[in-house]
């Protein structure tokens, strides 16, 4: 009778190894962050004034600041998603 009780208890754990996986979808980063970085613009051969150089430098600096925003955007996006992802564990 004792053996029967033990066997019945074991049987009650039937199929306990079955686990259904739940896989969250990896989010897509903002489209702006996925664009290819623009190249800096050199001076054209006919641009020989100091004002041309300043203007060109200004355009390139603007380009740098846009890329800086995108770079920080990537870091921000990754850290936020990581926090959300870790909350699932």
């Amino acid at each position: 009778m004792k053996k029967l009780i033990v066997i019945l208890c074991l049987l009650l754990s039937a199929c306990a190894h079955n686990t259904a996986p739940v896989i969250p979808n990896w989010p897509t980063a903002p489209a702006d962050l996925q664009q290819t970085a623009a190249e800096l613009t050199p001076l054209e051969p006919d641009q020989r004034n100091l004002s041309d150089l300043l203007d060109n430098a200004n355009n390139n600096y603007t380009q740098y600041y846009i890329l800086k925003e995108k770079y920080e955007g990537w870091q921000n996006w990754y850290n936020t998603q990581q926090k959300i992802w870790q909350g699932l564990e």
Partner: protein
Amino acid sequence: MFELIVNHFLGNVPVWIFPFMAGAGFATFIIAGIAEHIEPVRIYALIARPISIIVMVVGVFLYGGAGVIAVQQAALQEAQNKVKMAEQAAADATKQLADNLASQEHLVKGRGYGVGQMIKQDRAVINADCKRINDQAWADYNRAVKNAGSVPVK
């Protein structure tokens, strides 16, 4: 295959059937035990006894499986809800970041444009002392822009 059959069985048969099977098996086992001592039905009792044990064991096994599946389904539902909330949070965060990024980019371009306008206005003053930048300065500047410098060998 065995697992598939059991899962199919558990998913398609009402749960109350399993304790009923186990109870019926146990009752038959007891009745057959008594009936063994009654000569006219002894032969039936001897056959019924092992069958009743099998029915009881299968009933208990499937009842246990049904319980485990119910617990797992609850856990699965909870996990799915959690994932759904996380996906929503991730999408919201992404949208907020995209909006913020677009706004920052707009500001950066605006400020760059402002500086460009200032340079245009001050063109005469800027160029007053330096009419034409020298060729070497022009070439070095472009090297810097293209990041095409090399260490000079002395």
